[in-house]
């Protein structure tokens, strides 16, 4: 009986090996098609969740390249909303170019922003605007 089933088992195993992607990183953040935008979700190293809507996603050697991010959210207790001309998702970090971020009363523009495990880092030229309500 086992000998009869053995070829079938081997064929099924071979098919299974081909069907699953090799990179676990991509498996956890496969894009969904939604209207004309591509919706993508992922987690930074350290388990912080993000989600974006982008015009396009290109899978390249260095990571997933995102074009025209119109709605991005980093899901913190006080969420960070962002837009960017482009981005790269690789090794648990999200690198944004031509980015604008908004969290609470703070707005930030920067040529480049890298979202990592516990921090957002800003590069190039930029501007921070704090909206302060008070006696001033």
């Amino acid at each position, binding site marked *: 009986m086992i000998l009869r089933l053995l070829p079938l088992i081997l064929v099924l195993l071979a098919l299974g090996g081909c069907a699953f992607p090799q990179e676990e990183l991509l498996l956890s953040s496969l894009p969904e098609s939604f209207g004309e935008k591509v919706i993508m979700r992922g987690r930074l190293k350290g388990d912080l969740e993000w989600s974006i809507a982008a015009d396009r996603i290109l899978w390249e050697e260095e990571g997933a390249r995102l074009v025209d991010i119109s709605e991005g959210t980093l899901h913190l207790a006080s969420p960070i909303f962002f837009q960017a001309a482009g981005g790269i998702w690789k090794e648990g970090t999200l690198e944004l170019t031509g980015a604008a971020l908004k969290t609470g009363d703070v707005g930030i523009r920067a040529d*480049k922003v890298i979202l990592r495990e516990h921090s957002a880092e800003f590069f190039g030229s930029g*501007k921070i605007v704090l909206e302060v*309500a*008070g006696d*001033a």
Partner: protein
Amino acid sequence: MRRIAAFLLVFLLAMPALAVEIQLEGEADVPWGSFDLKEGIYTIRPQSKPMTITADDLVITAWELEYREKEGLALIQGDVTLAGEDFSAKGERLRADFAQGEYILEGSVSLTAGDFEAAAQTLTYRPGLIEVAGFCEIILPEGSLQGQHFQIDLETGSLLGFGPAQLTFK
């Protein structure tokens, strides 16, 4: 309902709000700052050029800023300059409470305001008023004044001293 909406609109328009802007210039691969996602602290350290902060009619330049989102306080340091319409000052460190409109400059403070020039340990700026404290020396057109605590009214240009002071004529 319309009255309530009109009242809310007037209230929102009348509510004082201040936009503090921080301008930074740098190269694409050189970081100028970061935001701690857990603690809510911004740390800004430009590498090539000091940052420019504008808050209402004040202009501040410095090399380093730490802004704590929860407290609304900014700690600014590194060749700090603080300038308004009627004065300019320099110091080592500045504590800025943007919401209260209070700025405390510390460490080898120098000030130019109208006819006065001053050196002091600390300077506190609130709209229309400057206080200098610690060991202070005020250079006047007529001579110099040494003491511990002076207040300069920027609107009237008057100088008020507290405690013992020594006046030296030219």
